[in-house]
């Protein structure tokens, strides 16, 4: 297994810069998730690594081996990557067994390897079925087994679970993570689903406008986002106006008093970082809506200066619309200057 090192990679489609001097390091045997909205260039990044898109400049290395540098590209069939596109893309005319064995050189070892792979994804009994006879989840497992069979240098997963329904998605996430860890495969996954990125990845890399803007553990990226957009892309986030005084103290509409002057900017608050206190003498917020999810609820509050914030509270919920409460921020303060 090997790491992936991408330096200053630029990809143009006509006049549009899809990847803009992008750099990213995927450590050996780790699972990195690139997280970004559709159209940010994440699929292009994956396709450039696989060799389907020719970058204009920059380099891609697997370990110390150059795969792509300016005009010289190693063709896709010689990169030894495992590629799992969005819909799985099984070969419709081949059985499960033949799909899995597609990238193997035929021989007595190949049968053994196919069985190993089928065993790994738990599909030994379905080896002779055709793809259309499988459920969506089974098809996806076959796609994973097929990609892993030739023992690829790296695995590339493009929005792997987006076509599956919510429950199946959660099951498969855990299973695929286990398989990739078991096989110690270096994996790059791209997704627009923040939960998927946070649950599966060792490292999350939010992407914006053709660049990777941060690389860190899920916790790091969630707790200390480098920018407003990153904060919003990694989870629910309230962007609240704030003032930072010379002494470094930050005041928000949730604070008791407002300073005369200071630096104007915003603060990012996660809904679970707002604490609601009942029965207090000096309430500072009014409940105007409750969104009930079952396991928890979002309480929408209006502050005296008409700023609206939301607090996540665990069920059961004892509040009702119109209640006067005190809202307090309990988490870290992330201040961003106004540009």
């Amino acid at each position, binding site marked *: 297994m090997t790491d992936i090192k991408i330096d200053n990679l630029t990809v143009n489609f006509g006049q549009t810069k899809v990847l803009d001097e992008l750099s990213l390091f995927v450590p050996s045997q780790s699972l990195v998730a690139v997280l970004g909205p559709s159209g940010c260039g994440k699929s292009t990044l994956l396709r450039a690594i696989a060799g389907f898109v020719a970058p204009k400049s920059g380099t891609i290395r697997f370990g110390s081996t150059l795969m792509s540098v300016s005009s010289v590209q190693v063709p896709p*069939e010689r990169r030894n990557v495992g590629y799992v596109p969005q819909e799985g893309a099984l*070969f419709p005319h081949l059985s499960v067994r033949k799909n899995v064995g597609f990238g193997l050189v035929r021989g007595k070892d190949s049968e053994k390897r196919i069985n190993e792979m089928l065993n790994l994804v738990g599909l030994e009994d379905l080896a002779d079925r055709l793809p259309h006879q499988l459920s969506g989840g089974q098809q996806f497992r076959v796609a994973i087994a*097929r990609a892993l069979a030739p023992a690829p240098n790296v695995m590339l997963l493009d929005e792997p679970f987006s076509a599956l329904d919510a429950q199946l998605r959660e099951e498969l996430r855990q299973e695929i993570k286990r398989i990739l860890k078991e096989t110690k495969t270096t994996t790059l996954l791209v997704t627009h689903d923040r939960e998927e990125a946070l649950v599966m990845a060792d490292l999350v890399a939010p992407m914006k406008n053709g660049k990777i803007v941060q690389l860190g553990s899920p916790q790091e990226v969630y707790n200390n986002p480098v920018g407003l957009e990153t904060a919003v892309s990694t989870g629910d986030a309230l962007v609240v106006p704030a003032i930072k005084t010379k002494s470094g103290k930050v005041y928000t509409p949730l604070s008791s008093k407002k300073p005369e002057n200071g630096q104007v900017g915003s603060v990012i608050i996660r809904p679970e970082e707002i604490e609601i206190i009942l029965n207090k003498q000096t309430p500072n917020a009014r409940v105007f809506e409750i969104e009930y999810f079952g396991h928890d609820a979002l309480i929408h509050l209006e502050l005296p200066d008409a700023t609206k914030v939301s607090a996540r509270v665990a069920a059961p919920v004892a509040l009702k619309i119109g209640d006067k409460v005190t809202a307090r921020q309990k988490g870290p303060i992330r201040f961003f200057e106004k540009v």
Partner: protein
Amino acid sequence: MLIRASENGSGEFLKLLSRPKTLSTLTTSLALALVVALGALFLGVSIALILGKTNTPFRKIFLVVMPLPLAIPSYVIAYSYLVLNPYLNGFWISALILILATFPFVAIPTYALLRRINLNQEEVARTLGFTPFAVITKVIWPQVRVASFAGALLSALYALSEFGTVAFMRLDTFTRVIYTTYRATFDRSSAASLGLMLLAVSLFVVFLERRFRGANIPSTAISKTGGILKIGRWRWLTLTFVFAVYFATLALPGFLLISRTFQVGTSIDWPNLFIKTGNTALVAFVGATIALLLALPIGILNARFRSRFAKFIEKGLYVTHALPGVVVGLALVALGAKYLPALYQTIYLLAFAYALLFIANSLGSVRSSLEKIPQRLDEVSRSLGQTFGQTFKRVILPIATPGILSGWLLVFVTAMKELPATLMLKPTGFETLSTSLWTATSISQFAQAAPFALALVLIASLPSYLLNRPNLAEKEMLRENSAI
């Protein structure tokens, strides 16, 4: 090739143009094309609406036979009407036969679109106060008319290039005049000039048809297909109408062919019939194969490399679909006699004519079968260590083969029914079913012609049945692609 053929007549061309005979030929051809287009439009849309939107009894059976008239050459229908009454001739009976033979060009796409219009649209229109009839005229018709018009233009194109029907009915349109000029006087330059005029008219119609087809309305996903109107007692009237159409197109000619064949009965020259059937199939086989071999590389270049050159060639070849058989026949006679004496008077030149005439069909099937295969499959295969060549062999070809073969079969069937180019290019002494039918009918030996006509219909409609039978593997593949 055509320019070559008309070389010797640049000044003559104008003289020919001003001849009254030329003018009347032009008017007759254009009038025939117009009447056939309008008739096919009326008949095709009526049939599509009746079968697709009303509760007319036996709809399902009529749906199955809807494309069948296309499998029967129109000159066989013309022949069977002559059996009924040998004195039939002229404009209106030709027009009627051509309308009956070509209305499926309109009915099939119109019906398909009708069924694709979402029921929700109709329901919304009803809640907005539209009567069921107004729904058809204001909501449905505007969405299907483009396809209907394009189909009517195909009928017009067919009428312009059809030879057998007008020849049997002794109507002097371009094709018949060209053929008789060529046969009677061997005056190739004036025949070629007339051919050029016919070609120009046909190209214009193809151009119109392309314009219409380009403007297709994207349809929404089908959740529920459109509703069926309950038309009460009227449904017996619509049933009578549909029945009359298919009686005149299929049942009556079929009955006449069979009864006359039995009349000839024991005197049928079986070995002769077999030889001619074999000849027909042989040339058509070679022709369809040449067409496929030419279409395959172009289709691959287009579907997988988006080559500009291939796109240009494909557009150019699409135009061949406007080439009337007489024109191709004439051009290849000239080319063969002058430059390819080795091929002239062989079945290969005839097969090449078939390839040229029907390559557009071949190309269409190659292209659509390749385009159905998602590019993702290629990529996965490449990432698994396969070169493009290996990917082609292991992934693309196995998936595309059924579609490509059915395209080949289509060309094969169509070529078997070809008449004018076959008459002009067949080696002396070599007879196919269509030329035998032609010869016997020309000398009014209607009964002797019946076995040839029947054999032709049988070998032409059997593969059509295979083509139209829902292809199981393909269906499953489609379902699989939408399911993942």
